[in-house]
């Protein structure tokens, strides 16, 4: 088996707070191959923070540590900002959870995509413009010419999300970390956007970390799923087995979904147990394997 694209061992992110040190990520380990890796888990469980830590985007006073954080065998843990910037947006991209917030509010959308593309591929401005239009069309933006000339506050929530995806895919990254990338999309647009990501994994061997709270979607779209709770991975599953999850937290998540074909008065809510914070982990292995092959 060849080396994974990304290898993370015992990743920790800690913030000093008034009440003492708060550990947002507490010893996360996983390998990413050329696969669709889903990450689900409760709000505040450390999903976004894990992604940010990989990209070196945790701001001080937050502290990141790990036994290992390697991109294709090369350590990227706490690299100097200049080197990290060369990796970010080039070899690893991240679609942030707050897409509109991550766009520059005073720069036209078209100019932002063109800049992102040229930073990576160089070339003439005209060609980059064509490419930008093409990418906006690919993410189902209906009137790409108008959107190119618009500012971020002039587009809808779901459009912002798609623009961010188009921008992050422009440099053709080896790894894409997508943080709730489709949470504001209606289902038909969502399908198209997922197809694009799916194609990149299948045809170009991109590694995809797909953070989402949509369990059904993750079960259908991903190959493997990590379940996070309170900063740890409590269970790792093949996506198709998600509905047979063993950890009580994962089971609880599945039960709290509303269903169109099953109306209920009140939704089931989780009874969280303190023991989940530090209790035993399900399906834990030191070596992970890669469905889909490498």
């Amino acid at each position, binding site marked *: 088996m060849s080396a994974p694209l990304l290898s993370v061992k015992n990743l920790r992110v800690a913030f000093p707070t008034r009440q003492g040190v708060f550990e947002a990520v507490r010893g996360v380990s996983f390998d990413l191959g050329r696969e669709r890796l889903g990450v689900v888990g409760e*709000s505040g469980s450390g999903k976004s923070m894990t992604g940010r830590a990989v990209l070196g985007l945790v701001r001080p006073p937050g502290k990141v540590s790990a036994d290992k954080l390697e991109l294709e065998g090369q350590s990227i843990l706490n690299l100097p900002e200049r080197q990290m910037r060369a990796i970010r947006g080039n070899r690893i991209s991240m679609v942030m*959870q707050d897409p509109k917030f991550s766009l520059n509010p005073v720069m036209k959308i078209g100019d932002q995509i063109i800049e992102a593309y040229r930073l990576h591929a160089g070339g003439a401005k005209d060609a980059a413009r064509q490419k930008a239009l093409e990418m906006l069309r690919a993410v189902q933006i209906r009137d790409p010419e*108008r959107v190119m000339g618009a500012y971020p506050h002039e587009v*809808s929530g779901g459009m912002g999300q798609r623009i961010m995806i188009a921008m992050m895919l422009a440099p053709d990254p080896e790894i894409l970390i997508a943080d709730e990338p489709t949470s504001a*999309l209606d289902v*038909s647009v969502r*399908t198209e956007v997922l*197809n694009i990501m799916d194609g990149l994994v299948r045809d170009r061997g991109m590694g995809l970390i797909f953070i989402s709270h949509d369990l059904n979607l993750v079960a259908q779209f991903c190959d493997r799923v990590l379940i996070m709770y309170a900063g740890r991975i409590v269970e790792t599953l093949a996506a198709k087995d998600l509905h047979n999850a063993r950890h009580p937290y994962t089971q609880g998540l599945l039960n709290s979904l509303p269903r*169109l074909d099953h109306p209920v008065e009140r939704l089931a809510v989780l009874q969280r147990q303190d023991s989940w914070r530090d209790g035993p982990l399900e399906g834990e292995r030191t070596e992970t394997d890669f469905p889909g092959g490498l």
Partner: protein
Amino acid sequence: MLRVDDLDVWFGFPPDRVDAVKRASFSVAEGESFGLVGESGSGKSTILRAITGLIDSWSGTIEVAGQAVAGQKRDRAFHKTVQMVFQDPYASLHPRHSVDRVLSETLKLQGMGDIDSRITRLLEDVGLGQGFRFRYPHQLSGGQRQRVAIARALAAEPRLLLLDEPTSALDVSVQAEILNLLTDLRAEHGLTYVMVSHDLSVVGHMCDRLAVMRGGRIEEIMTVDQLRHGGATEDYTRHLIAASAGYERA
């Protein structure tokens, strides 16, 4: 409680004018919960923003609790009656204001007393403990920020709540808690909701009726019962329902 008639909303001037909402009409009875679903970019948020007075370029009628509103002018009584939870919680929270300040300012603005215990109660209601009270937005996760935005809207004890994708940033367990809270509040205080969501099962759970939007127009208004039992008449609605059954790899 809410009547919207022949609403047009546009941005900019010809030739660049964008017609975001075209001739939209619907009304929501007191105590009813009404869903707005449809394509991304179809004008759902724009309708809510026009109602709350964030957009001046509109025509038609908007009536809240029997009072017609005009342009962008909304008085204090309006904001006591109507509150909105925005789609984009990051943009709607002041980056330098702590959770405590956000909530206490809203409470003071509405002339409420007993601020300290109200804040405690609000945070508990949305599933955030006291540990979050003095945090700033950048110290919160996406779902935690969204819950602060919901707590702020509830702080004013409004009668009409406009909710723009209120749970799309939340994991399903927290989503269940928030939806149950909204259900309880509606039962206890007879609140009225207008809720935008792309998740048909959430709309099915929360709403009595819904409007399906596409390209700035309301394509169809239906009951949740019709939604559940295949009673959609428009092709687009049927397509939406079929697609929400799940993702299949191409």
